[in-house]
């Protein structure tokens, strides 16, 4: 049976960029373990020769004519930015201290 340990939950939170308080992690790890145990029931179904379905309806790629059309102005795009500078999004440094 699958199980999600506290360490594994902490790893998942890091991968998903979720900073969790220790008690929050304790709580979520226990719940995730229960849910993972439940969803593992899908393995009871013999489906080796069954094709997967990724979308509700069969779809093929959709194309449109390659024509210019109006888009958002930079003012509109930046209007809800947490921080902007010189007509651009201002973001925290993306490299480590040593860079």
């Amino acid at each position, binding site marked *: 049976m699958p199980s999600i340990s506290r360490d594994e939950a902490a790893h998942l939170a890091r991968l998903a960029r979720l900073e969790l308080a220790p008690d929050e992690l304790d709580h979520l790890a226990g*719940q*995730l373990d229960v*849910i*993972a145990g439940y969803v593992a029931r899908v393995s009871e179904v013999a*489906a080796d020769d069954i094709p997967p379905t990724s979308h509700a309806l069969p779809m093929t790629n*959709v194309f449109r004519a390659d024509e210019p059309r109006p888009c958002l102005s930079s003012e509109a795009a930046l209007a809800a930015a*947490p921080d902007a500078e010189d007509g651009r999004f201002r973001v925290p*440094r*993306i490299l480590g201290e040593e860079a």
Partner: protein
Amino acid sequence: MADLTRLTAAALAEAVAAGDVSAVEVTQAHLDRIGAVDASVHAFLHVNAEGALVAAKAVDERRAAGEELGPLAGVPLALKDVFTTADMPTTCGSKILDGWRPPYDATVTRRLREAGIVILGKTNLDEFAMGSSTENSAFGPTHNPWDLSRIPGGSGGGSSASLASYQAPLAIGTDTGGSIRQPASVTGTVGVKPTYGGTSRYGLVACASSLDQAGPCARTVLDAALLHEVIAGHDPMDSTSIDAPVPPVVDAARRGASSDLSGLRVGVVKELGGEGYQAGVETRFREAVALLSELGADVVEVSCPHFRYGLPAYYLILPSEVSSNLARFDAMRYGLRVGDDGTRSAEEVMSQTRGRGFGAEAKRRIMLGTYALSSGYYDAYYGQAQKVRTLIARDFETAFEQVDVLVSPTTPTTAFPIGERVDDPLAMYMADLCTIPSNLAGNAAASFPCGLADEDDLPVGLHVMAPVLADDRLYRVGAAVEQAYAQRWGGPLLARAPELEVDS
């Protein structure tokens, strides 16, 4: 004139078109009702009184100029706060988007405006439409107008509660695993999930892209059909939008009102009942099936053996898509940013913001999806769930070779008390047991009121499922049972809801 807030959308539109009442008066009556009851219901996260009155005035001016108005022009509507609106905040019930004003309108929003429908405001929901009770909203739960201590369903509990408390005659919901149908069921209202691709997802903030579908919510079947025709149809801005005519849902609703279902073949899904289903729900459901027979339908039992794996497959597929979709909330371009003090890196700011901005259910699903998609687990979980999805679609195909529609209860219980399941995720997930198969297969499905459960006098819903692009069959069945029940009960089910106390 009678209390405008008690009229159907169809009647309101007729009254506006005939000049018996102005769209401004209709809108003001609903804004007054919101002011009187929403402090206790909490259906709305944002009310746009000024914008609504401006939109209503525009309808009145067009009418005065002799313009032909659409069939819902001048009718107010409550919009689930998961559709972008350029003139109102769009929060998705999340702190991470608190106060966010999108720079564009969703296609659904635009079509409502073009039809002259007056958007009163944005309704409450579980965060990013993830939940069955609205308790996962960062802004507090919505209360069920039938009993304010109970949940109004979810995720679209704000929309269902606004209808059941006469704050709006129309609402829009979205349905990923039952978020239109389950709230309709527990509030005694009508909710329809169209065929996947029937309505545009452009500007609908994504929960799980392969499952999400916008749909109409109303107090009557005809009102839902009229709204369905306004919002449905091909949209080049959504690559999963179906490029085919909208099924004739309004005609079907009008035809169904004759209460003649002769020739209709109905299948009762054997697997959706029994253990875990409330007795009063099963009793009302059996009566609804008997009613379908009385109205002329041929009823048989059918088996969909893989439906029991729908819920576990869904809780692998959905979190996988959620973990990808919610990755866009990265504190860089819009929404909340926490901890940007000049020393922290983008990654640290991102983690802090997401840790602070998302609620417990969003975190659970993001982490579960991250788990299901990790290498080593992918084939056993996500891959296997996608195969189960194929088997569920095949169950539907086989069933629809024998019958025209399938029926079940909409949800196993009536409205449960606020707080009862909030920290028990699996118990909460069970609320969508009957509704999830149609999301996985992409077909059309709806919930219609079918009475009150004996043990608690709370609404029960009849769930009807139809094949892909046969949405009109839902309306035929819904209108037929609505008409028959109205005769039997001497009025609509909602007339039996207790009157809310009114704040002066």
